[in-house]
């Protein structure tokens, strides 16, 4: 008995470790997308809930704001721009020694003036002579910054980085690219499973072969054809219609294969009864097959939708990179080059691109898994 419980313990332990490793990367992405952009660049996301120390270089007010008080010239202001949650730990007035003094303290400058800085960043700078500086004096701060979570990054990428438009583009590509192959595939699957005609097995064997043909084989010839059609009619070779049809073509073999297997598994007495009663193939399809196939449609539809949504290659080849056509994955990959160091933009954009799949996944998980398990049988 003791041995058994030890085995149980090991199972818990290993599974916990694996789950932990699996989740951490995504979790880090999510946290980072919610953090302030300066913090993302400087500290690890796992410190998001800690107070962090940042070094800042700020300037005092210009000499124009000085006023005279009892014979002394005074400049006051706040180096932290009145953000109440931050506080100054150390400060310095030379770049050589940026942490020279502990706030709050009074410092005498080279020209004899006195600089008094408090923890909240407010300062009072006094001098016997009038201030003459044009630019504010540089002050080096070490600032204690509290954790701050914000949706600012999402606003930034959706509105100013064009991700909102890309999101719509992705939908424009994905929805028809899911529906068209489903409909066409369903008709073909029905024909292949219940209609007798010459060469049926050969056609199905061909489809089995096409299941595994790499997409790459099609790209160059199709693009050439598109270019020719484009220049013949004087329209752009890269259009939504083009990519819908391309996705349809690439997804069709699997759709036909899965739907045919499903339809074939339905009891054939039903069809014979319907035939005897004089129903046409079209009637059988609409009245019997379609209602029965709803769950299979859901699984296969979800599979295709996610595949199209997550696709990069087809979108790169068949769509333009203009803002009105670029899809999320493609835009995200552009950003990887453009903003390679702006992790707040990258993490947020990646998360935006993941929202729809994750939602579909979590809400329709059962159908999704069923589709995948069936789909993998294509082998």
């Amino acid at each position, binding site marked *: 008995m003791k041995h058994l419980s030890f*085995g*149980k313990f090991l*199972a*818990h332990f*290993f*599974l916990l470790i*694996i*789950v932990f490793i*699996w989740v951490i*990367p*995504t979790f*880090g*992405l999510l946290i980072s997308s919610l953090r302030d952009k300066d913090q993302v*660049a400087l*500290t*690890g*996301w796992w410190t998001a809930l800690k107070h962090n120390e940042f070094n800042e270089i700020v300037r005092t007010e210009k000499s124009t704001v000085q006023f005279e008080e009892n014979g002394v010239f005074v400049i006051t202001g706040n180096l932290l721009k009145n953000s109440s949650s931050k506080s100054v730990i150390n400060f310095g007035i030379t770049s050589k020694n940026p942490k020279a003094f502990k706030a709050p303290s009074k410092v005498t400058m080279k020209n004899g003036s006195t600089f008094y800085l408090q923890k909240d960043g407010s300062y009072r700078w006094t001098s016997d002579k009038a201030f003459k500086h044009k630019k504010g004096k540089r002050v080096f701060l070490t600032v204690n910054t509290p954790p701050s979570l914000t949706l600012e990054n999402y606003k930034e990428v959706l509105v100013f980085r064009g991700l909102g438009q890309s999101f719509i583009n992705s939908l424009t590509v994905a929805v028809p690219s899911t529906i068209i192959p489903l409909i*066409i595939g369903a008709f*073909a699957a029905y024909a292949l499973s219940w*209609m007798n005609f010459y060469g049926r*097995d050969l056609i199905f064997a061909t489809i*089995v072969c*096409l*299941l*595994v*043909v*790499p997409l790459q*084989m*099609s*790209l*160059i010839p199709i*693009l*050439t054809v598109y270019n020719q059609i484009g220049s013949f009619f004087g329209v752009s070779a890269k259009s939504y219609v083009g990519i819908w*049809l391309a996705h*349809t*073509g*690439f997804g*069709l073999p699997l759709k036909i294969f899965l739907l045919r297997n499903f339809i074939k598994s339905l009891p054939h007495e039903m069809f014979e009864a319907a035939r005897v009663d004089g129903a046409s193939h079209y009637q059988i399809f609409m009245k019997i097959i379609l209602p029965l196939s709803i769950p299979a449609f859901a699984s296969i539809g979800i599979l295709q939708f*996610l595949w199209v*949504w*997550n*696709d*990069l290659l087809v979108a*790169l080849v068949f769509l333009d990179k203009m803002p009105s056509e670029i899809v999320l*994955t493609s835009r*995200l*990959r552009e950003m990887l080059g453009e903003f390679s160091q702006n*992790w707040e933009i*990258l993490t947020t*954009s990646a998360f935006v*691109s*993941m929202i729809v*799949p*994750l939602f579909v*996944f979590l809400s329709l998980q059962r159908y999704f*898994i069923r589709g*995948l*398990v069936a789909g993998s*049988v294509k*082998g």
Partner: protein
Amino acid sequence: MAPALIILLVYLIYPVSETIRLSFFDNYGREFTGVSNYVWALNDSDFRQSILNNFLWLIVVPTTCTFLGLTIATLADRVWWGVFAKTLIFMPMAISFVGASVIWKFVYEYRGAGNDQIGILNAIIVYFGGDPHAWIAIPFWNNFFLMVIMIWIQTGLAMVIFSAALRAIPEETLEAARIDGASEVRIFFYIIIPFLSETIVVIWTTITILVLKVFDIVLAMTNGQWGTEVLANLMFDWMFRGGGDSGRGSTIALFIMLGVIPIMIWNLRRFKMEQER
């Protein structure tokens, strides 16, 4: 039926023959150049590198995914929070390769020694007293860091399929073995593994096909730099580099096709057996 056939013809069957034809022509597809594209490919260092890397991917990724998937499926069956664990491990399946690349690029992010590391991998290494590295720029080993991404995504698939298959094993068989005094380990190797052999093959081939076409991850992470080039990315490169070279692009595509032909034949044989039954 008719629209389906037309689309299949236009988008798959015609292109396959056209790609084969183009691979014997020059960069614009106008002049017949014999096997010169193939000669070029075999002598090109990028191409050789890609073939080598593709082989590496083909060996490592399906093996690891199958192994991990089976392990997780077995473990998850034994704990009460198994369903929850499986959901979490399966989640990357829903994420695009580009999205996953961003996630992992962030994990591998490198800052010069002495700075705060913001990538978690380097942070852990520094915490234990090691030196940070720019992981994706280390030749040869960086291939494995890219493979981790694919494994991270595809293990969920293997796990789900194994889970379904494990449930199909008749309880009586396991029960009988236990009564005979077989240990869990023996049961695993002598009953479960043979029972799952077909499932293992299915998962293996599915992931193999996927790996042959690996493109998004390499493009997004390194674009083939630092010795990580793979066939699909090289082909994409040649398709568009300097106006495009359809001859060389097609040749590279054909090599990818070559990889799936054994699987295609195996599929066909299975289909035939199914028909005869």
